[in-house]
Protein backbone atom coordinates (compact mmCIF):
# COMPACT_ATOMS: atom_id res chain seq x y z
CA UNK A 1 0.00 0.00 0.00
CA UNK A 2 1.37 3.37 -0.99
CA UNK A 3 1.06 6.51 1.02
CA UNK A 4 -0.18 9.46 -0.97
CA UNK A 5 2.60 12.05 -0.68
CA UNK A 6 5.30 9.67 -1.87
CA UNK A 7 5.63 10.81 -5.47
CA UNK A 8 5.81 14.39 -4.25
CA UNK A 9 8.65 13.52 -1.97
CA UNK A 10 10.45 11.81 -4.81
CA UNK A 11 9.90 14.82 -6.96
CA UNK A 12 11.02 17.23 -4.27
CA UNK A 13 14.20 15.19 -3.98
CA UNK A 14 14.91 15.96 -7.63
CA UNK A 15 15.07 19.72 -7.13
CA UNK A 16 18.83 20.08 -6.46
CA UNK A 17 19.64 17.90 -9.43
CA UNK A 18 17.26 19.88 -11.70
CA UNK A 19 18.85 23.12 -10.50
CA UNK A 20 22.23 21.77 -11.59
CA UNK A 21 20.98 20.55 -14.98
CA UNK A 22 19.17 23.76 -15.83
CA UNK A 23 21.69 26.07 -14.17
CA UNK A 24 24.36 24.61 -16.47
CA UNK A 25 22.37 25.70 -19.51
CA UNK A 26 20.74 28.97 -18.46
CA UNK A 27 22.76 31.88 -17.10
CA UNK A 28 20.03 34.02 -15.66
CA UNK A 29 19.18 32.81 -12.15
CA UNK A 30 15.57 33.96 -12.22
CA UNK A 31 14.92 32.30 -15.56
CA UNK A 32 16.62 29.14 -14.33
CA UNK A 33 14.34 29.15 -11.29
CA UNK A 34 11.29 29.51 -13.52
CA UNK A 35 12.41 26.59 -15.63
CA UNK A 36 13.00 24.43 -12.58
CA UNK A 37 9.46 25.17 -11.45
CA UNK A 38 8.06 24.39 -14.85
CA UNK A 39 9.97 21.11 -14.99
CA UNK A 40 8.67 20.16 -11.56
CA UNK A 41 5.10 20.83 -12.60
CA UNK A 42 5.49 18.61 -15.64
CA UNK A 43 7.23 15.83 -13.70
CA UNK A 44 4.56 15.97 -11.02
CA UNK A 45 1.83 15.70 -13.59
CA UNK A 46 3.50 12.68 -15.12
CA UNK A 47 4.83 11.09 -11.91
CA UNK A 48 1.97 8.60 -11.69
CA UNK A 49 2.67 7.32 -15.20
CA UNK A 50 6.41 7.01 -14.81
CA UNK A 51 7.86 3.71 -13.70
CA UNK A 52 9.40 3.79 -10.27
CA UNK A 53 13.12 4.43 -10.51
CA UNK A 54 12.75 6.09 -13.87
CA UNK A 55 11.60 9.38 -12.37
CA UNK A 56 15.11 10.85 -12.27
CA UNK A 57 15.99 10.25 -15.95
CA UNK A 58 12.50 11.42 -16.88
CA UNK A 59 13.04 14.64 -14.93
CA UNK A 60 16.40 15.22 -16.60
CA UNK A 61 14.95 14.78 -20.09
CA UNK A 62 12.03 17.03 -19.21
CA UNK A 63 14.42 19.70 -17.91
CA UNK A 64 16.40 19.60 -21.14
CA UNK A 65 13.23 19.86 -23.19
CA UNK A 66 12.06 22.83 -21.19
CA UNK A 67 15.40 24.57 -21.76
CA UNK A 68 15.27 23.74 -25.45
CA UNK A 69 11.77 25.27 -25.71
CA UNK A 70 13.06 28.39 -24.03
CA UNK A 71 15.86 28.68 -26.60
CA UNK A 72 13.44 28.14 -29.43
CA UNK A 73 11.21 30.80 -27.99
CA UNK A 74 14.06 33.27 -27.64
CA UNK A 75 15.18 32.54 -31.15
CA UNK A 76 11.70 33.22 -32.51
CA UNK A 77 11.56 36.49 -30.61
CA UNK A 78 14.88 37.52 -32.02
CA UNK A 79 13.82 36.70 -35.54
CA UNK A 80 10.56 38.58 -35.27
CA UNK A 81 11.75 41.46 -33.18
CA UNK A 82 11.89 43.83 -36.18
CA UNK A 83 8.19 43.29 -36.73
CA UNK A 84 7.15 44.83 -33.48
CA UNK A 85 9.33 47.92 -33.81
CA UNK A 86 7.14 51.00 -33.78
CA UNK A 87 8.36 53.05 -36.71
CA UNK A 88 6.00 55.93 -36.10
CA UNK A 89 7.84 58.90 -34.74
CA UNK A 90 6.38 60.37 -31.63
CA UNK A 91 4.27 63.47 -32.17
CA UNK A 92 6.39 66.56 -32.31
CA UNK A 93 5.40 69.40 -30.01
CA UNK A 94 4.46 71.77 -32.84
CA UNK A 95 2.18 69.28 -34.54
CA UNK A 96 -1.00 70.63 -33.04
CA UNK A 97 -0.10 74.13 -34.05
CA UNK A 98 0.71 73.10 -37.61
CA UNK A 99 -2.49 71.10 -37.86
CA UNK A 100 -4.56 74.04 -36.68
CA UNK A 101 -2.81 76.38 -39.13
CA UNK A 102 -3.52 73.86 -41.84
CA UNK A 103 -7.21 73.79 -40.89
CA UNK A 104 -7.39 77.57 -40.88
CA UNK A 105 -5.77 77.73 -44.32
CA UNK A 106 -8.13 75.17 -45.78
CA UNK A 107 -11.14 76.91 -44.23
CA UNK A 108 -10.00 80.27 -45.58
CA UNK A 109 -9.36 78.79 -49.02
CA UNK A 110 -12.82 77.20 -49.00
CA UNK A 111 -14.32 80.55 -48.05
CA UNK A 112 -12.77 82.10 -51.15
CA UNK A 113 -14.68 79.79 -53.46
CA UNK A 114 -18.09 80.85 -54.71
CA UNK A 115 -21.07 79.46 -52.83
CA UNK A 116 -22.01 77.18 -55.65
CA UNK A 117 -18.50 75.82 -56.09
CA UNK A 118 -18.22 75.19 -52.39
CA UNK A 119 -21.63 73.53 -52.12
CA UNK A 120 -20.92 71.18 -55.01
CA UNK A 121 -17.43 70.32 -53.80
CA UNK A 122 -18.59 69.57 -50.27
CA UNK A 123 -21.58 67.57 -51.47
CA UNK A 124 -19.24 65.43 -53.54
CA UNK A 125 -16.19 65.13 -51.29
CA UNK A 126 -17.75 65.21 -47.83
CA UNK A 127 -21.28 63.85 -48.27
CA UNK A 128 -20.20 61.48 -50.99
CA UNK A 129 -22.89 62.49 -53.46
CA UNK A 130 -22.00 61.23 -56.92
CA UNK A 131 -21.65 63.40 -59.99
CA UNK A 132 -24.76 62.00 -61.66
CA UNK A 133 -27.16 63.02 -58.90
CA UNK A 134 -25.39 66.37 -58.60
CA UNK A 135 -25.88 66.85 -62.32
CA UNK A 136 -29.57 66.04 -61.99
CA UNK A 137 -29.95 68.68 -59.28
CA UNK A 138 -28.16 71.30 -61.34
CA UNK A 139 -29.78 70.42 -64.60
CA UNK A 140 -26.38 69.57 -66.05
CA UNK A 141 -24.48 66.48 -67.12
CA UNK A 142 -22.23 64.27 -65.01
CA UNK A 143 -19.25 65.12 -67.21
CA UNK A 144 -19.80 68.84 -66.81
CA UNK A 145 -20.08 68.48 -63.05
CA UNK A 146 -16.87 66.44 -62.94
CA UNK A 147 -15.07 69.09 -64.98
CA UNK A 148 -16.44 71.79 -62.72
CA UNK A 149 -15.27 69.83 -59.67
CA UNK A 150 -11.80 69.60 -61.17
CA UNK A 151 -11.69 73.33 -61.72
CA UNK A 152 -12.89 73.91 -58.17
CA UNK A 153 -10.21 71.64 -56.76
CA UNK A 154 -7.60 73.46 -58.83
CA UNK A 155 -8.83 76.78 -57.44
CA UNK A 156 -8.90 75.41 -53.92
CA UNK A 157 -5.26 74.34 -54.22
CA UNK A 158 -4.23 77.78 -55.45
CA UNK A 159 -6.19 79.62 -52.77
CA UNK A 160 -4.86 77.27 -50.10
CA UNK A 161 -1.28 78.00 -51.18
CA UNK A 162 -1.92 81.73 -51.22
CA UNK A 163 -3.41 81.62 -47.71
CA UNK A 164 -0.69 79.36 -46.35
CA UNK A 165 2.14 81.44 -47.76
CA UNK A 166 0.19 84.54 -46.81
CA UNK A 167 0.79 86.31 -50.14
CA UNK A 168 -1.35 88.28 -52.51
CA UNK A 169 -0.56 87.67 -56.17
CA UNK A 170 1.46 90.72 -57.26
CA UNK A 171 -0.05 90.96 -60.75
CA UNK A 172 -3.43 90.17 -62.23
CA UNK A 173 -1.80 87.58 -64.48
CA UNK A 174 -0.67 85.50 -61.49
CA UNK A 175 -3.98 83.87 -60.61
CA UNK A 176 -4.85 82.65 -64.12
CA UNK A 177 -1.33 81.22 -64.49
CA UNK A 178 -1.48 79.45 -61.13
CA UNK A 179 -4.95 78.12 -61.94
CA UNK A 180 -3.75 76.77 -65.27
CA UNK A 181 -0.80 75.08 -63.57
CA UNK A 182 -2.95 73.71 -60.75
CA UNK A 183 -5.47 72.29 -63.18
CA UNK A 184 -2.70 70.76 -65.27
CA UNK A 185 -4.41 72.16 -68.36
CA UNK A 186 -1.65 72.47 -70.92
CA UNK A 187 -3.69 74.34 -73.50
CA UNK A 188 -4.70 76.90 -70.92
CA UNK A 189 -1.08 77.15 -69.73
CA UNK A 190 -0.05 78.03 -73.26
CA UNK A 191 -2.86 80.56 -73.59
CA UNK A 192 -1.74 82.45 -70.52
CA UNK A 193 1.93 81.92 -71.41
CA UNK A 194 2.59 80.31 -68.03
CA UNK A 195 6.24 79.51 -68.75
CA UNK A 196 7.11 83.14 -69.40
CA UNK A 197 5.18 84.36 -66.39
CA UNK A 198 7.02 81.95 -64.09
CA UNK A 199 10.33 83.34 -65.34
CA UNK A 200 9.16 86.87 -64.65
CA UNK A 201 7.26 86.49 -61.39
CA UNK A 202 9.21 85.25 -58.39
CA UNK A 203 6.09 84.82 -56.27
CA UNK A 204 4.47 82.53 -58.79
CA UNK A 205 7.72 80.69 -59.47
CA UNK A 206 7.80 79.77 -55.80
CA UNK A 207 4.09 79.07 -55.38
CA UNK A 208 4.00 76.90 -58.47
CA UNK A 209 6.53 74.41 -57.11
CA UNK A 210 4.01 72.26 -55.17
CA UNK A 211 1.49 72.62 -58.01
CA UNK A 212 3.99 71.35 -60.58
CA UNK A 213 5.12 68.50 -58.35
CA UNK A 214 1.53 67.44 -58.05
CA UNK A 215 0.99 67.31 -61.77
CA UNK A 216 1.48 63.91 -63.30
CA UNK A 217 5.13 63.62 -64.17
CA UNK A 218 5.25 63.77 -67.95
CA UNK A 219 7.85 61.64 -69.55
CA UNK A 220 7.42 63.39 -72.89
CA UNK A 221 8.73 66.71 -71.64
CA UNK A 222 12.02 67.94 -70.19
CA UNK A 223 12.59 71.31 -68.65
CA UNK A 224 16.16 72.55 -68.32
CA UNK A 225 16.92 75.74 -66.44
CA UNK A 226 19.64 77.64 -68.27
CA UNK A 227 22.26 79.83 -66.69
CA UNK A 228 25.73 78.60 -67.61
CA UNK A 229 27.71 77.20 -70.51
CA UNK A 230 27.32 73.71 -69.16
CA UNK A 231 23.54 74.04 -69.41
CA UNK A 232 23.88 74.43 -73.18
CA UNK A 233 25.34 70.96 -73.35
CA UNK A 234 22.71 69.63 -70.93
CA UNK A 235 19.90 71.13 -73.02
CA UNK A 236 21.08 69.78 -76.34
CA UNK A 237 21.71 66.34 -74.88
CA UNK A 238 18.29 66.27 -73.25
CA UNK A 239 16.71 67.25 -76.56
CA UNK A 240 18.63 64.56 -78.39
CA UNK A 241 17.64 61.94 -75.84
CA UNK A 242 13.96 62.82 -75.92
CA UNK A 243 13.83 63.09 -79.70
CA UNK A 244 15.56 59.72 -80.04
CA UNK A 245 12.41 58.15 -78.62
CA UNK A 246 10.41 59.23 -81.65
CA UNK A 247 12.74 57.32 -83.89
CA UNK A 248 14.52 60.26 -85.49
CA UNK A 249 17.53 59.29 -87.56
CA UNK A 250 20.94 60.00 -86.04
CA UNK A 251 21.50 62.81 -88.52
CA UNK A 252 18.28 64.51 -87.50
CA UNK A 253 19.09 64.08 -83.82
CA UNK A 254 22.37 65.90 -84.37
CA UNK A 255 20.53 68.62 -86.27
CA UNK A 256 18.07 69.08 -83.41
CA UNK A 257 20.92 69.09 -80.88
CA UNK A 258 22.80 71.69 -82.94
CA UNK A 259 19.75 73.95 -83.18
CA UNK A 260 19.11 73.65 -79.43
CA UNK A 261 22.75 74.47 -78.83
CA UNK A 262 22.46 77.67 -80.88
CA UNK A 263 19.31 79.02 -79.28
CA UNK A 264 20.41 78.05 -75.79
CA UNK A 265 23.69 79.85 -76.26
CA UNK A 266 21.73 82.99 -77.07
CA UNK A 267 20.04 82.72 -73.66
CA UNK A 268 23.37 82.41 -71.85
CA UNK A 269 24.99 85.20 -73.88
CA UNK A 270 22.24 87.79 -73.93
CA UNK A 271 19.83 87.07 -71.12
CA UNK A 272 21.94 85.27 -68.54
CA UNK A 273 19.19 82.94 -67.42
CA UNK A 274 16.15 81.30 -68.89
CA UNK A 275 14.83 77.87 -69.60
CA UNK A 276 14.56 75.37 -72.40
CA UNK A 277 11.57 73.08 -72.60
CA UNK A 278 11.74 70.11 -74.92
CA UNK A 279 8.52 68.24 -75.54
CA UNK A 280 7.24 65.61 -77.86
CA UNK A 281 4.16 66.66 -79.80
CA UNK A 282 1.83 64.55 -81.89
CA UNK A 283 -0.29 67.23 -83.53
CA UNK A 284 -0.47 67.94 -86.37
CA UNK A 285 2.30 65.38 -86.72
CA UNK A 286 4.72 63.64 -84.45
CA UNK A 287 7.71 65.76 -83.72
CA UNK A 288 9.82 67.41 -81.10
CA UNK A 289 9.19 70.96 -80.03
CA UNK A 290 11.76 73.13 -78.32
CA UNK A 291 10.84 76.29 -76.47
CA UNK A 292 13.70 78.50 -75.32
CA UNK A 293 12.62 81.48 -73.26
CA UNK A 294 14.43 84.10 -71.28
CA UNK A 295 13.64 87.34 -69.53
CA UNK A 296 16.57 89.18 -71.01
CA UNK A 297 16.72 92.54 -72.78
CA UNK A 298 14.97 91.26 -75.88
CA UNK A 299 16.10 91.46 -79.49
CA UNK A 300 15.83 95.00 -80.93
CA UNK A 301 15.32 93.88 -84.50
CA UNK A 302 14.21 90.29 -84.93
CA UNK A 303 14.34 90.50 -88.73
CA UNK A 304 17.93 91.63 -88.59
CA UNK A 305 18.84 88.96 -86.04
CA UNK A 306 17.39 86.33 -88.34
CA UNK A 307 19.53 87.53 -91.23
CA UNK A 308 22.72 85.63 -91.89
CA UNK A 309 25.91 87.13 -90.60
CA UNK A 310 24.31 89.34 -87.96
CA UNK A 311 26.34 88.86 -84.85
CA UNK A 312 26.71 90.83 -81.69
CA UNK A 313 29.22 88.70 -79.88
CA UNK A 314 31.77 88.07 -82.53
CA UNK A 315 30.23 84.75 -83.48
CA UNK A 316 29.59 83.59 -86.97
CA UNK A 317 26.19 85.24 -86.88
CA UNK A 318 24.68 81.86 -87.49
CA UNK A 319 22.83 81.44 -84.21
CA UNK A 320 19.21 82.23 -84.97
CA UNK A 321 19.28 81.98 -88.79
CA UNK A 322 21.20 78.72 -88.52
CA UNK A 323 18.74 77.23 -86.06
CA UNK A 324 15.90 78.33 -88.34
CA UNK A 325 17.49 76.49 -91.26
CA UNK A 326 17.95 73.37 -89.16
CA UNK A 327 14.38 73.10 -87.89
CA UNK A 328 11.07 72.72 -89.72
CA UNK A 329 9.13 75.36 -87.77
CA UNK A 330 10.72 78.38 -86.23
CA UNK A 331 9.28 81.41 -84.48
CA UNK A 332 10.83 84.19 -82.45
CA UNK A 333 8.82 86.45 -80.21
CA UNK A 334 10.78 89.17 -78.55
CA UNK A 335 9.71 92.14 -76.53
CA UNK A 336 12.18 94.81 -75.53
CA UNK A 337 12.85 94.65 -71.81
CA UNK A 338 10.72 91.55 -71.34
CA UNK A 339 12.66 88.86 -73.08
CA UNK A 340 12.63 86.46 -75.97
CA UNK A 341 10.89 83.20 -76.71
CA UNK A 342 12.10 80.96 -79.50
CA UNK A 343 9.80 78.11 -80.46
CA UNK A 344 11.00 75.58 -82.96
CA UNK A 345 9.81 72.18 -84.09
CA UNK A 346 11.26 69.30 -86.01
CA UNK A 347 8.75 66.89 -87.50
CA UNK A 348 9.48 63.22 -87.48
CA UNK A 349 9.41 61.18 -90.66
CA UNK A 350 8.34 62.56 -94.04
CA UNK A 351 9.09 66.23 -94.54
Amino acid sequence: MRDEPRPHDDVAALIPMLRRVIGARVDDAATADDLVQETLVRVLAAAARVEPGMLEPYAIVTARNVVASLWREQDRHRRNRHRVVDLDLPDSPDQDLLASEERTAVAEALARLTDRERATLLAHEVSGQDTRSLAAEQGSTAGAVAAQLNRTRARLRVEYLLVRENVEPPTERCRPVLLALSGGDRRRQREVDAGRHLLECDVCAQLSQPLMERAQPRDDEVRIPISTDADIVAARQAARELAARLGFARTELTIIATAVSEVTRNIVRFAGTGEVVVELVDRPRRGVQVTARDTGPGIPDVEKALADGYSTYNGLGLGLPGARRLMDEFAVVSEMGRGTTVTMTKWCGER
Partner: protein
Amino acid sequence: MTGPKLVSILRQGSWLIASIHTALDDTQMLMFQHDLIDQIGRYRSRGVVIDVAALDVLDSFGARTLRTIAEMARLRGAETVIVGIQPDVAFAMVSLGMDTGTVPTALDLEEGLEYLGRPGGARSARHGRAAG
Protein backbone atom coordinates in the same frame (compact mmCIF):
# COMPACT_ATOMS: atom_id res chain seq x y z
CA MET B 1 39.02 69.81 -63.23
CA THR B 2 37.65 66.64 -61.70
CA GLY B 3 36.46 63.47 -63.34
CA PRO B 4 37.83 61.85 -66.45
CA LYS B 5 39.87 63.99 -68.79
CA LEU B 6 37.79 65.91 -71.29
CA VAL B 7 40.61 66.28 -73.78
CA SER B 8 44.08 64.91 -74.15
CA ILE B 9 46.97 66.53 -75.94
CA LEU B 10 49.73 64.07 -76.82
CA ARG B 11 53.11 64.95 -78.22
CA GLN B 12 54.32 62.86 -81.11
CA GLY B 13 57.64 64.13 -82.35
CA SER B 14 57.07 67.59 -83.70
CA TRP B 15 53.34 67.02 -83.90
CA LEU B 16 50.60 67.33 -81.35
CA ILE B 17 47.62 65.01 -81.36
CA ALA B 18 44.71 66.61 -79.53
CA SER B 19 41.70 64.40 -78.88
CA ILE B 20 38.41 65.63 -77.53
CA HIS B 21 36.85 62.83 -75.50
CA THR B 22 33.37 64.13 -74.83
CA ALA B 23 30.91 66.93 -75.47
CA LEU B 24 32.51 70.20 -74.41
CA ASP B 25 30.73 73.31 -73.27
CA ASP B 26 31.93 76.73 -74.41
CA THR B 27 34.18 77.34 -71.42
CA GLN B 28 35.82 73.95 -71.79
CA MET B 29 36.24 74.60 -75.49
CA LEU B 30 38.05 77.87 -74.80
CA MET B 31 40.20 76.15 -72.19
CA PHE B 32 41.09 73.53 -74.78
CA GLN B 33 42.02 76.28 -77.21
CA HIS B 34 44.23 77.92 -74.62
CA ASP B 35 45.97 74.67 -73.61
CA LEU B 36 46.59 73.65 -77.18
CA ILE B 37 48.08 76.97 -78.27
CA ASP B 38 50.18 76.93 -75.11
CA GLN B 39 51.59 73.49 -75.90
CA ILE B 40 52.29 74.33 -79.53
CA GLY B 41 54.68 76.97 -78.21
CA ARG B 42 56.14 74.80 -75.49
CA TYR B 43 56.92 71.81 -77.73
CA ARG B 44 57.75 73.88 -80.80
CA SER B 45 55.22 71.78 -82.70
CA ARG B 46 54.95 72.03 -86.46
CA GLY B 47 51.71 70.17 -86.92
CA VAL B 48 48.50 69.66 -84.93
CA VAL B 49 45.83 67.02 -85.40
CA ILE B 50 42.56 67.77 -83.65
CA ASP B 51 40.33 64.73 -83.30
CA VAL B 52 36.71 65.79 -82.83
CA ALA B 53 35.10 62.38 -83.31
CA ALA B 54 33.62 62.43 -79.81
CA LEU B 55 31.98 65.85 -80.10
CA ASP B 56 28.20 65.50 -80.15
CA VAL B 57 27.68 68.62 -82.22
CA LEU B 58 29.79 71.23 -83.91
CA ASP B 59 27.67 74.33 -83.64
CA SER B 60 28.66 77.84 -84.63
CA PHE B 61 30.71 78.34 -81.51
CA GLY B 62 32.51 75.02 -81.79
CA ALA B 63 33.32 75.60 -85.45
CA ARG B 64 34.50 79.13 -84.79
CA THR B 65 36.75 77.94 -81.97
CA LEU B 66 38.33 75.31 -84.22
CA ARG B 67 38.95 77.94 -86.88
CA THR B 68 40.46 80.24 -84.27
CA ILE B 69 42.72 77.47 -83.01
CA ALA B 70 43.89 76.70 -86.54
CA GLU B 71 44.55 80.36 -87.29
CA MET B 72 46.41 80.90 -84.02
CA ALA B 73 48.43 77.74 -84.60
CA ARG B 74 49.29 78.95 -88.11
CA LEU B 75 50.52 82.22 -86.71
CA ARG B 76 52.66 80.23 -84.29
CA GLY B 77 54.11 78.25 -87.15
CA ALA B 78 52.09 75.03 -86.90
CA GLU B 79 49.72 73.50 -89.39
CA THR B 80 46.39 72.19 -88.13
CA VAL B 81 44.22 69.43 -89.51
CA ILE B 82 40.82 68.52 -88.09
CA VAL B 83 39.89 64.86 -88.19
CA GLY B 84 36.96 62.70 -87.21
CA ILE B 85 33.98 64.91 -88.05
CA GLN B 86 31.12 62.42 -87.93
CA PRO B 87 28.77 62.17 -90.91
CA ASP B 88 25.76 63.43 -88.97
CA VAL B 89 27.78 66.30 -87.52
CA ALA B 90 28.98 67.17 -91.00
CA PHE B 91 25.41 67.16 -92.28
CA ALA B 92 24.27 69.44 -89.48
CA MET B 93 27.17 71.81 -90.16
CA VAL B 94 26.26 72.07 -93.80
CA SER B 95 22.59 72.60 -92.96
CA LEU B 96 23.56 75.26 -90.47
CA GLY B 97 25.52 77.01 -93.17
CA MET B 98 28.85 76.56 -91.53
CA ASP B 99 32.22 75.11 -92.43
CA THR B 100 35.72 74.93 -91.12
CA GLY B 101 36.86 77.69 -93.47
CA THR B 102 40.33 77.13 -94.82
CA VAL B 103 41.23 74.62 -92.12
CA PRO B 104 42.11 71.31 -93.76
CA THR B 105 40.19 68.24 -92.63
CA ALA B 106 40.80 64.54 -92.91
CA LEU B 107 38.68 61.48 -92.34
CA ASP B 108 40.47 60.10 -89.30
CA LEU B 109 43.66 60.31 -87.28
CA GLU B 110 45.62 58.17 -89.72
CA GLU B 111 44.65 60.32 -92.69
CA GLY B 112 45.36 63.42 -90.64
CA LEU B 113 48.89 62.32 -89.84
CA GLU B 114 49.42 61.36 -93.45
CA TYR B 115 48.26 64.83 -94.45
CA LEU B 116 50.78 66.47 -92.14
CA GLY B 117 53.54 64.18 -93.44
CA ARG B 118 52.83 64.87 -97.11
CA PRO B 119 55.48 66.57 -99.26
CA GLY B 120 55.20 70.25 -98.47
CA GLY B 121 53.45 69.40 -95.20
CA ALA B 122 54.51 70.15 -91.68
CA ARG B 123 57.22 67.51 -91.47
CA SER B 124 58.88 68.34 -94.72
CA ALA B 125 58.76 71.98 -93.75
CA ARG B 126 60.76 71.15 -90.65
CA HIS B 127 63.16 68.99 -92.65
CA GLY B 128 63.51 71.75 -95.13
CA ARG B 129 64.41 74.15 -92.39
CA ALA B 130 66.80 71.65 -90.82
CA ALA B 131 68.48 71.20 -94.17
CA GLY B 132 68.62 74.91 -94.85
